[in-house]
Each structure stands twice: as C-alpha cells, then as structure tokens.
C-alpha cells in the first residue's frame, strides 16, 4: 500500500497559502483589537483642508493669547472659533495685502460665512467641557490659562497647519481621569491634590458615565 503521489508544486503551495492566510488574519485581528482598545497604528494626526491658510504659528509668535480668539474656552463647553469680524478687526490694518488675508476681507465684504474645516471632532455622544479642564490645570499649576491648551492640542505655536496630536479616544480621556492627570501637574500641585483627595476634601476626577455622555 502506498500513499497517492502528491505533486511537488502542491506540497509547496498549500503550506505557503496557509501561512499567508494565517499571518494575514493574525495581523488584521491584532490591528482591529488595537484600534478598538487603544491607539491605532501609525501617527494619529488629523488634518483638515481650510478655506484660508490660517497660520497658528505666526499668531502665537506675535504673542496673541489663545483666549483672545478662542474666547469661550474659559467660560463654557466649546472653546469657539472667532467670527470673521474678529479677524477683520486686526486684519483691516495688519498685512491686508497678503493674498490669504485678501480672501478673508472679501468674505467679510460679501457677508458669506467662513466654513473652517474642523480638526478636533469628538463623537456626538461625548460632551467635552473646556472650562473645567482649563480652569483646573491653570489654577493647580499656577499658570496662565492659555498655557494649558497644549496639554491636549500640542504645541500649536509650531504648527503651520493645525492638526490633532492626541487620538482623543475614550481611553485617552479615561486614563487621564483615573490618575494620568498627575503627569501634567507640577510636583507641588500633585502633592497637594493627592493629599486633598485622600483626605476627602476634594473629589477625584469623575468617572461617572454621565459626566461626558449625555
């Protein structure tokens, strides 16, 4: 009795194909799981196309406070994007011959709306409150409110085009609320907060679902 003779090509091909399918499946599964639970592979950078090439770096270099344009960051939910009128307030004088600013001025003349491309967009079922975060970190670290923004938004002062630097998934938020926020505090502030939380004078950052999801 002898086994049927298998051609050499099949003997080589079958394990090869099996290996490819198996490895491919493994890579896809790991990719999906990693994307779901933590940071997806690759740089988590989001860029948006803008109607006007606004230069954050120039405005920061000119020492304009973040809160001068993003006026509600200290008062409410959204940091808000400035109105065209606020841009024109300076730019009717400053650099009014530049081609990008000519676009801005013509939009202001025509009365159309300026639809900026949104860079940081959380899902609709998440409510992020700028006020609470900016006030907490600026009070604890004893710094100006506009020095807090970079914790989440990166060093905007070096960006020609604004981009998202953190992945801002729920893991990112929850890690910080569960104790990761100590990394962004000065040593004195960290010690004071730890003391206040353990003695019960202060609440730890909330981890109730209804803090953000409503």
């Amino acid at each position: 009795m002898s086994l049927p003779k298998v051609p050499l090509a099949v003997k080589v091909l079958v394990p090869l194909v099996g290996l490819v399918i198996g490895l491919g499946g493994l890579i896809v599964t790991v990719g999906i799981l990693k994307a779901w639970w933590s940071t997806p592979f690759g740089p988590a950078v989001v860029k948006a196309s803008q109607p006007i090439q606004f230069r954050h770096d120039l405005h920061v270099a000119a020492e304009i406070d973040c809160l001068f344009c993003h006026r509600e960051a200290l008062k409410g939910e959204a940091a808000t994007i400035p109105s065209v009128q606020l841009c024109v307030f300076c730019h009717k004088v400053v650099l009014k011959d530049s081609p990008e600013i000519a676009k801005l001025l013509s939009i202001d003349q025509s009365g159309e709306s300026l639809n900026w491309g949104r860079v940081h967009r959380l899902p609709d079922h998440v409510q992020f409150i700028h006020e609470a975060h900016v006030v907490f970190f600026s009070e604890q670290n004893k710094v100006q409110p506009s020095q807090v923004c970079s914790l989440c938004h990166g060093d905007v002062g070096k960006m020609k085009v604004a981009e998202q630097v953190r992945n801002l998934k729920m893991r990112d938020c929850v890690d910080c609320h569960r104790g990761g926020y100590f990394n962004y505090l000065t040593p004195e502030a960290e010690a004071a907060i730890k003391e206040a939380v353990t003695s019960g004078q202060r609440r730890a950052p909330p981890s109730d679902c209804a803090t953000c999801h409503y």
Partner: protein
Amino acid sequence: MAIERKPEPKWVMVVDADRCSGCQACVVACQAENNVPLNTDAIFNQKRAHEWIRIERYWVSGDPDKRPDEVDFKNLKVKFLPLMCQQCENAPCEPVCPVYATYHNDQGLNVQVYNRCIGTRYCANNCNYNVRFFNFWEPVWPETLRNQLNPDVTVRSRGIMEKCTFCVQRIRRGDRLVKRENRDFKDGDVTPACVQSCPTGALAFGNIKDEKSAVAKMAHDDRHYRLLEEQGTGPNVIYLKKVDLHAAEDKAHE
C-alpha cells in the same frame, strides 16, 4: 480623617397638579432643549411618539354615579398630570439592561448612556410609567430647524433608547457654577427646561438634601404622593394632589 467634602446633591422634581393647566409649554420646551425628534400623526398612531415629558389628561365626572362619557360636558372635570421619567430609586429599567447602558449615578439620576445602548428595548418594556422612547428611525429635522439643535445634548441615532434626563446638561452647568463660586447648590442654580417654561409654576426642581430648598418644603406638603408608589420603584418625582372642592361627594375612589 474627617471628611469635609460636600455631599452630592439629590435632584428631585415636584409637580403641583393643582397648578397645571395642561398648556403643554413644558412639552415644547423639552422638545427644543433636548433635541427630541419631531412627532407626526403617523408616528403618534403607531404609539412610537417621543415625548420626554407628556401631559396625561383624565376626565372626571361631577356625578359620582356616572362615568365621564355619560355626563354633560358642563359637569365634566378634567385633571392634568405632567409625566416624565420618575428617576426611580429602585428603577425597574436598570436590572434588565444587558449592557449596563442605564444605571444610577451618585446624584440620584437614572442615567441612560447612549453609546452603550444596543437597543434591546427591555428597559422600555419594564418601565412602569411608559417614559422610555426608542428611536425606530433616524431622527429628521426640517431644514429650518437645523440651527435650533442644542449642541450640549447628543442627537440620538436609530436604535437607541432615550428618556428624560432631568436636563443633565443644565445640572452639569450648575455643577460648574457652584464650583466657580465655591458654594453649595441653592434654588435656581439648576432649572430644567420644563420647569423654566411652566407659566403657572406647577413644576419645581431642586436639591432635596438642602432643607431650605423649595422642593424640600413642598415634599412635606399634605397633598404629596408618588406615582405607583406601591410598586416599590421609589420615584424621585413628587406629585401634589389636585385640590377638588367637591371631592367629598366623589365616592368612586373610597
């Protein structure tokens, strides 16, 4: 180690049925504040209409021996009962959720987490008050109402259960207000849309742990009762009974 932390507030609504005129202002205000989808006649007839707060209307006949449809219109009495999620202490909707999308938080609110909800509808079936609403369709607003949507509230998509939240977005705003001013909650810090819009002051909202608050005083009114209290759900909405001058003649309920 002494704990000096202020206790969490416990939110309670008081509905004075005697003052309710059934004008539906609360229904409209709620619809606008909370991005509640619009209802059409067809949706209503399917009993799939969304009304986070609704006015229940009861006809009562002046004559104790006759049913309401047997008496003259002039002898009919009408009772209105605004009904919203009762934020039950022992909520029947909570244990039946397979994904913990609804739970109680430390402020006594019955929270619905939209992104956890998978739409089994068990909670709506187990609710004693019929105040949970399921999105059978993707919500649609006419073009003219697009800028009316409240950015602080999620727009619920298809397949999601939703219900009254006691305007939790306004409670969060109140949280930040008292934190900024470093004080306790007082009346008026948090006003849900229905309470704000009520022209007769039939609705009141506040922190019942604060003994000076209006709701704490109204909760001890002689007329107070809670809906379906005997079922042990422990509602956090307190109703004050409608005063009926001829109630002594009415033997139907005795």
